[in-house]
């Protein structure tokens, strides 16, 4: 079966520090991968998605970037964190073969910026 892992589960970082969140998927090949941010008590905002290695699409302009160095690895990064980057970051995958496949989420990283 397929599984998705995100780490760390929680992270506290000072303003201006760098960020690296990692997401890996097991049990599938060529998945579509997604990064979402969820503000407290709010909905899901799509940040980045990827349909293949090195292919990244950004949905909103921001202080963050994403990379996909391997087929089942998705990394969210920042060079300098802002207070507004605080939130709950979720990685998700879906089967990349056809459209209208469900997305499956990891358990997220709670990021607090001090």
């Amino acid at each position, binding site marked *: 079966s397929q599984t998705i892992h995100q780490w760390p589960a929680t992270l506290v970082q000072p303003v201006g520090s760098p960020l690296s969140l990692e997401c890996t998927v097991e049990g599938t090949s060529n998945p*579509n991968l*997604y990064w979402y941010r969820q503000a407290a*008590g*709010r*909905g*899901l905002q*799509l940040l980045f*998605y990827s*349909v293949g290695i090195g292919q990244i699409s950004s949905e909103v302009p921001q202080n963050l970037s994403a990379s996909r160095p391997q087929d089942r690895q998705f990394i969210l990064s920042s060079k300098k964190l802002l207070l507004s980057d605080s939130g709950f970051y*979720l990685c*998700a995958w*879906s089967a*990349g073969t056809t*459209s*209208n*496949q*469900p*997305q*499956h*989420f*990891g*358990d*997220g990283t*709670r990021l607090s910026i001090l």
Partner: protein
Amino acid sequence: QQQVKQSPQSLIVQKGGISIINCAYENTAFDYFPWYQQFPGKGPALLIAIRPDVSEKKEGRFTISFNKSAKQFSLHIMDSQPGDSATYFCAASGYNYGQNFVFGPGTRLSVLP
């Protein structure tokens, strides 16, 4: 046109009652409508999904009703239990969006014992 509206924002139901959450969309290109359940501190989990070729889909206590002409769909939770207390998100996607979903803002459900 990409927006998915969801109501109510919060819902309180007695144990054993029926919980109903409604969603509406504008874009007729949407043709896949999943519902997700999220517990605090966890990622959303797929609950049930429907395509517009059927008007209803039932899985256990959970039912999606779909009205294509009105561009509305709803989640019904029968015999609601305290363990159903969570935030529920509707979503929509379509061929022209690839694998991208548009999510509703969520409904926080509390089922009282």
